[in-house]
C-alpha cells in the first residue's frame, strides 16, 4: 500500500500493453511527485529513527512528541523546502502543484511524523489568499521554513458545525481591536506563537456579514491558554481572550469579510491524503503482524476471517486513495472540487474507524492494551487508534455536513431544512 514502492516488480499478466500512445485514464502520480515522495520517505525514516526520537515522546501532545522535537523536526523539513513545497516561490515556497503537498502529507502521516499540522497546512491558505503584503512578508517565510507554530481558532462553545453561532467579539478601537471571548477545541495553542481566529466585528448584523479574521500573538496580555485533556490522553486547548488589545495590523483580510475568507480558504488542498497515510500504515502493520504471528498453531494470515477482512481494508485504503487523488487532480488543474472533497474526507475518516475496529478484532484481547503497555501487539497502536479515530469524523466539518454536501452538490438534492 504505502502509496508504495513505485511499481511492483512482477510480470504483467497475460496482456500486451495496449493504448500506449495515449493513456487517457491514469491514476499514478507523475514521476516528479513519485521522486519527491521517495526523497521525503528517506527524510522521515531518518527523522523518526529510534535514536532521534528517544526521550522525546509526549503523550500529552497530539503529535505524540514534545515541543522541542516538533520544532526541530519542522525546521529541518522547512530547510529542505518541504513545508512550502506548493507555496509560491516569492516567499521561499517550492511553487510545485498541490499534489506535492498532498504527497508530503501522506508520508508525514504514514511515518507518524509531527508534520501534519504545520503553520502552512493550518494557516497557509488563508494567509496566501488574504494576507496583506506586510503580513505575507512577516509570516510566510517563517511558516515555510518551519520556524513558527500556529493554531486555528474557529470553534466556540456555541459554534461547532454551525459556525454562525460564534460569540467572540472584536471591538473596533481607534488603534486596533479589543478581543473578548473563548475559543474551544483548539489544537496546539499551548505551543503556538500565533492563532488565526474569527470574531464578530459587527454584532448588529448576521455572523456571515459581520465577522473578521485575525492573526493574534498568543503571548499578549489577557490571553489565557487552558489545556484540557482529551479522552486519549493528549490535550486540546480552551483559549480565553479577556480584553486583549491587538493592533490594526492583526486584522487578516477585509474587515467584516472573515466569513467568506474562511470559506474560501477551505478550498485549499482538500484531498486530506494524510488520513489515507494513517490508514495505509495501520493496514501495512496489521498485514506484517499477521504474517509473522501465530494463533492456534497457524499463522494469523492463514485464518479465513483475517484474510478476508484485511483484504477488504486493503481494497478500501485504495478507494480512499483514489478519492483523494481525484481531488488532487481537480485542484492541480485549478478546478474547485465539490462533492469530491466531501467524499474524500468522509470516506477516509470512516475508513480509519473501520481499520481500528477490524484491526482490534483481529489482534484479540491484547489489542485493547494502551500504547506502550507490556506485550501490547503493534505497541498498543490499535487500542490507541480506537480512541483516536473518534474525532476525525467530527472535526473539520462533521461527516453529517459532508453527507449533506454530497447530496446537494453531487446529486442535486434539495437543501436540508
Amino acid at each position: 500500500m504505502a502509496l508504495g514502492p513505485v511499481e511492483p516488480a512482477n510480470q504483467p499478466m497475460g496482456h500486451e500493453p495496449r493504448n500506449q500512445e495515449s493513456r487517457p485514464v491514469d491514476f499514478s502520480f507523475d514521476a516528479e511527485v513519485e521522486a519527491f515522495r521517495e526523497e521525503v520517505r528517506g527524510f522521515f525514516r531518518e527523522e523518526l529513527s529510534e535514536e532521534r526520537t528517544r526521550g522525546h515522546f509526549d503523550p500529552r501532545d497530539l503529535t505524540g512528541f514534545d515541543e522541542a522535537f516538533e520544532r526541530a523536526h519542522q525546521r529541518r523539513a522547512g530547510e529542505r523546502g518541504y513545508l512550502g513545497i506548493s507555496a509560491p516561490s516569492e516567499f521561499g515556497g517550492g511553487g510545485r502543484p498541490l499534489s506535492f503537498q498532498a504527497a508530503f502529507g501522506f508520508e508525514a502521516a504514514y511515518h507518524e511524523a509531527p508534520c501534519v499540522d504545520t503553520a502552512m497546512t493550518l494557516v497557509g491558505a488563508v494567509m496566501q489568499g488574504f494576507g496583506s503584503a506586510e503580513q505575507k512578508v512577516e509570516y510566510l517565510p517563517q511558516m515555510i521554513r518551519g520556524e513558527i507554530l500556529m493554531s486555528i481558532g474557529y470553534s466556540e462553545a456555541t459554534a461547532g458545525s454551525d459556525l454562525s453561532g460564534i460569540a467572540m467579539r472584536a471591538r473596533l478601537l481607534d488603534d486596533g481591536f479589543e478581543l473578548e471571548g473563548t475559543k474551544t477545541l483548539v489544537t496546539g495553542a499551548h505551543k503556538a506563537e500565533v492563532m488565526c481566529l474569527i470574531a464578530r466585528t459587527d454584532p448588529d448584523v448576521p455572523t456571515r456579514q459581520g465577522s473578521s479574521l485575525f492573526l493574534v500573538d498568543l503571548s499578549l496580555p489577557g490571553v489565557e491558554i487552558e489545556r484540557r485533556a482529551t479522552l486519549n490522553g493528549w490535550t486540546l486547548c480552551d483559549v480565553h481572550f479577556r480584553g486583549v488589545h491587538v493592533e490594526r495590523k492583526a486584522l487578516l483580510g477585509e474587515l467584516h469579510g472573515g466569513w467568506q475568507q474562511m470559506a474560501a480558504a477551505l478550498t485549499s488542498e482538500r484531498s486530506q491524503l494524510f488520513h489515507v497515510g494513517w490508514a495505509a500504515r495501520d493496514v501495512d502493520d496489521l498485514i506484517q503482524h499477521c504474517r509473522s504471528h501465530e494463533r492456534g498453531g497457524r499463522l494469523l494470515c492463514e485464518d479465513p476471517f483475517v484474510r478476508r477482512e484485511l483484504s477488504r481494508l486493503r481494497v478500501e485504503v485504495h478507494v480512499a486513495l483514489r478519492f483523494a487523488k481525484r481531488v488532487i487532480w481537480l485542484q492541480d488543474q485549478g478546478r474547485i472540487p465539490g462533492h469530491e472533497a466531501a467524499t474524500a474526507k468522509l470516506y477516509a475518516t470512516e475508513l480509519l474507524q473501520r481499520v481500528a475496529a477490524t484491526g482490534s478484532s483481529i489482534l484479540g484481547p491484547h489489542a485493547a492494551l494502551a500504547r506502550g503497555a507490556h506485550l501490547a501487539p503493534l505497541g498498543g497502536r490499535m487500542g490507541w487508534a480506537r480512541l483516536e479515530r473518534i474525532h476525525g469524523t467530527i472535526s473539520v466539518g462533521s461527516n453529517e455536513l459532508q453527507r449533506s454536501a454530497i447530496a446537494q452538490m453531487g446529486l442535486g438534492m434539495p437543501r436540508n431544512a
Partner: protein
Amino acid sequence: MDLSLNPEQQALRAEVREFLTQNTELAELLIAERSETHYDEELFRAFARRGWLQFGLPGFAGGVLELCLVLEEVGRSACPGPFQNGAVQCGLLLGALANQEQRGDWLAPLLDGRRRASLCVLEADGQLAPSSILLRAEPVDGGFELSGLKQLVPYAGTADEFYVVARTRDGGPGEDCMSLLRVEARLEGIHIRPQRGVFDDGAGAVEFCRVRVGGEALVGELHRVWPVLEDQLLVAAVALCAEMNGGAQAALDLAVAHARQREQFGRPVGAFQAVAHRAADCLVEVDACRLAVAEAASRIDAGLDFAEAASAAKALCAVAYPSVTAAAHQIHGGVGYYEDSRLHLYTRRAEAMAQALGDASHHLERIACLWAPLPGRIARRDTGDSTWT
C-alpha cells in the same frame, strides 16, 4: 495523473447511450426478457455490428477502458443480451488462446453478432476453481468425448456453440488438467434444461452425454488453459463491473429523481436528511466502484499488473450494486415495488451479477493470496506488502 476521458471516448459513450436509449423502453425490455430467446436478437446484432464488443481484444482498436465505457451504458439501459458471457468472455478467451485460423473462423462472427456462443464453466458447486470442474473430456480418435454437467450457462438455449472448460486428465485439484473445447450446440448428446433466474438471462444447465468433437475443437494448449482462463476472466470481471456500475448509477438516478419531486409532510422527501444522507452514501459507493473499474481497466490497457485492482473492483461492485438498489427501493417507497417502475430491472440484475465471475468473498480471498499465499497453493504472483502505484 489524468482522470479525464479523451474526446473519442466521450463520443463513443454518447453514441452508445443514444443507441440504447432509443431501444430500451421498460415494456420492450420485459418483452425481450420473457421471450423465447430472453433477449432481442435483432437489437443485439445491430449493437454488435457497430463494433462495440471488439474493444479490448488483441488485433482490434481500443482497449478494455473503451469496452468498459460501452458496457457501462449497457448496464445503465438494462438491455438484456449475451454481452458478457457470450461476447466478452468468449472473446477474451479466443483472443488469448485461439490460433490464427480459429480466430478468423470463430472470433469475428462472434463479435459482430453473426454467431451466438456461451461459455460453460460452472458446475454443481458454482465455484470458479479447478477442483470444482468435473466435466471430463476423454481423448478419442484424435478428438474428445465430453461427459458432464455445466450449470448457470447464460442464453444456453439460443447458443450456436459452447466453449466448454473440461478436465482432460487426472491429477490434484487440476490447475494443469484443464482444456477449452468448442462444441457445436446442436450435437447429439447435449441436453439443456432452463434454470430461470430472478433476472432471466436464459440460463440453463447443459448436460453433455458422451458428446464427440474433433481435435480441431481444442482451443489453446491441452491441459494448460486454467491460468489463462483465470486471468482472462479477471479482465472479464472488470468488464462486468462496468455494466454493474452503469446499473447502480441508473438506480441511484431514479431514486434521486423520485426524492426531488415526491412530496411528503409538505416538502420533497430528498430534503429530509435521513433520505439525503442515504443517497449520499450511494454516490460514495458508486464513485468508489467507477474509479476502481477505471483504474483496473487502465492498468490492463497499460500492460501493468492488474490482479489486485481487478479483484478489488469486483469485490467492491459485488457489494455496491445490490446495496445501491436496496437503498433506491427504500427511497422510492411503495411505488418502486411495482413492475412498472424501472427499478427492479437493476435490482434483479444486481443479484445475478454480484455472484457472476466470483462474489466479494472470492475476490477478497484472491487478494489475500497476493499478500499472504497459503501453503500448498501456488502463488502465481507475490506483490509484496506495498502494492500501490
